[in-house]
């Protein structure tokens, strides 16, 4: 029995604006589409993962959703590392399948963030008004930092140490937007220039509005199983070649080095497991909550040296036709970011590896990397996926 873990089904719910769906409905629609995609009957799902944490305290946590979807699982995981959760899920799901804890795993995500909360969410800060704040965030909450501000402090330090410029960061947003012009569902589809980015409104110096991701609705799902089971399914399998995750901190004040993420730890582990190097990767799905996120992941995963991410981007490597095409769906920066984007990285990487990406198809795409960043550059998960059986 070949228990090599594969991804066989992918599905997205409706985005970027879906006022007709609530969060749970996003989970459900994405599941239906992922099952339709691969032809696995729902009754065959014996493992379930989502990023809802645990405890049955939320409307869409794993045990509640397992009941709602009626998945009689013998493997369940609720790992919640923020946006990178789904790269951790690939790691955990692959291990569970290899070990025989279950045979076929469903992973789902759904968020109605835009329709429910509106677009002020991302920069609104962690705490409002006079409320009392406990836990480690009590040491940060009085200072009015924002989500963007946390990333901005990393960007500022990178500029200080390595001379990285706002124009170099802007190149990342420009390249991702170019891909978004080909995605009819993308939130923002008009082409932009470096000048547009650096002259857009400042949100938290040095990050401008166009250095920041969109705020959207959306959901996604994928189905993992064994290479054996994949043989008679509708879609060609995508192999999990290597997946790893690591964490350096959670709250931004505890980041040990403001220019290095945990990708420097988990990237080499994922590549070692895959028996590959960054040179072997044909396209990248990097978490682009902010332009600086991409730049740090690029460096920490070894696609360029530390400090050279800015010039790597400015040389056009991440753009269409470049050395490492990035975020071909239009990314979180321009297409879809409903709060935790990690699942979209997996879905798009699978689409590319199957050769189903239409006009944004990366030619000869054999190996893709999905790298998620959760929290405030805190918990990083990397999944290296491939078209060929390892």
């Amino acid at each position, binding site marked *: 029995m070949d228990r090599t873990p594969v991804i066989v089904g992918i599905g997205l719910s409706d985005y970027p604006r879906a006022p007709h769906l609530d969060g749970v409905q996003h989970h459900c629609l994405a599941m239906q589409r992922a099952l339709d995609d691969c032809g696995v009957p729902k009754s065959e799902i014996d493992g379930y993962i989502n990023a809802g944490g645990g405890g049955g305290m939320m409307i869409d946590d794993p045990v509640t959703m397992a009941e709602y979807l009626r998945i009689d699982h013998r493997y369940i995981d609720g790992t919640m590392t923020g946006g990178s959760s789904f790269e951790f899920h690939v790691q955990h799901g692959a291990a569970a399948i290899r070990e025989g804890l279950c045979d076929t795993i469903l992973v789902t995500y759904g968020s109605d963030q835009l329709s429910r909360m509106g677009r*002020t969410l991302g*920069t*609104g*800060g*962690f*705490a*409002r*008004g*006079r*409320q*009392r*704040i*406990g836990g*480690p965030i*009590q*040491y*940060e*909450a*009085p*200072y*009015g*930092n*924002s989500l*963007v*501000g946390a990333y*901005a*402090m*990393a960007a*500022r*330090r990178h500029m*200080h140490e390595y001379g990285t410029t706002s124009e170099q960061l802007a190149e990342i947003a420009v390249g991702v937007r170019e891909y978004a012009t080909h995605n009819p569902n993308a939130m923002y589809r008009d082409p932009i220039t470096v000048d547009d980015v650096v002259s857009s*409104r*400042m*949100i*938290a*110096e*040095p*990050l401008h509005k166009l250095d920041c991701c969109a705020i959207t609705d959306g959901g996604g799902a994928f189905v993992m199983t064994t290479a054996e089971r994949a043989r008679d399914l509708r879609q060609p399998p995508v192999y999990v070649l290597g997946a790893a995750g690591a964490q350096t901190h959670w709250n*931004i*004040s*505890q980041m040990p080095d*403001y220019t290095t993420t945990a990708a420097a730890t988990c990237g080499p582990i994922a590549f070692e497991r895959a028996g590959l190097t960054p040179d072997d990767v044909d396209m990248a799905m990097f978490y682009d909550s902010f332009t600086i996120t991409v730049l740090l992941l690029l460096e920490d995963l070894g696609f360029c040296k530390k400090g050279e991410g800015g010039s790597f981007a400015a040389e056009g490597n991440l753009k269409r036709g470049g050395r490492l095409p990035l975020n071909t769906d239009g990314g979180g920066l321009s297409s879809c970011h409903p709060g935790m984007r990690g699942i979209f990285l997996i879905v798009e990487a699978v689409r590319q590896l199957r050769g189903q990406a239409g006009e944004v198809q990366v030619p000869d795409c054999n190996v893709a990397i999905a790298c998620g960043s959760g929290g405030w550059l805190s918990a990083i998960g990397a999944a290296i996926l491939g078209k060929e059986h390892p």
Partner: protein
Amino acid sequence: MTSSTNAEVVRGQEWERPTPAKDGVSSHYWEAAAQGDLLIQRCPSCGNRQWYPRAVCTECGADPEWEAASGRGTVHTYTVIHQNYAKPFRDELPYVVAIVELEEGPMMMGNVTGVAPGDVRIGMPVEVYMVEAEEGLAVPFWRPARS
């Protein structure tokens, strides 16, 4: 605890910001701040110094001891916040959020005040002062060092 910070404590200002909820460890930190002391922790086993305070040493897991910091540091990195919809911060825009590297080594978050946001630089020497939020609870802030 052998030393003290002797920082200025600003009292009597209206406090509209989120207020820390004291717990078994943090109560010492916030109460000391109200007396003008910026507390960090030092581990008697391994010598590690840490901020924020915890019930264990992050290096070796032993019980840390309190130590008053000098209250001097430098800006390690910072941002100028231009957008925050939350009260009261939205009325204070733009303002500086920084990571300050203490003379003793640990880094901590704070606001740098008393200087135009555009004049803040990485490496800038800063000194701590406290703002009382309520009786027995003050929050450390930073301003350019005087000497």
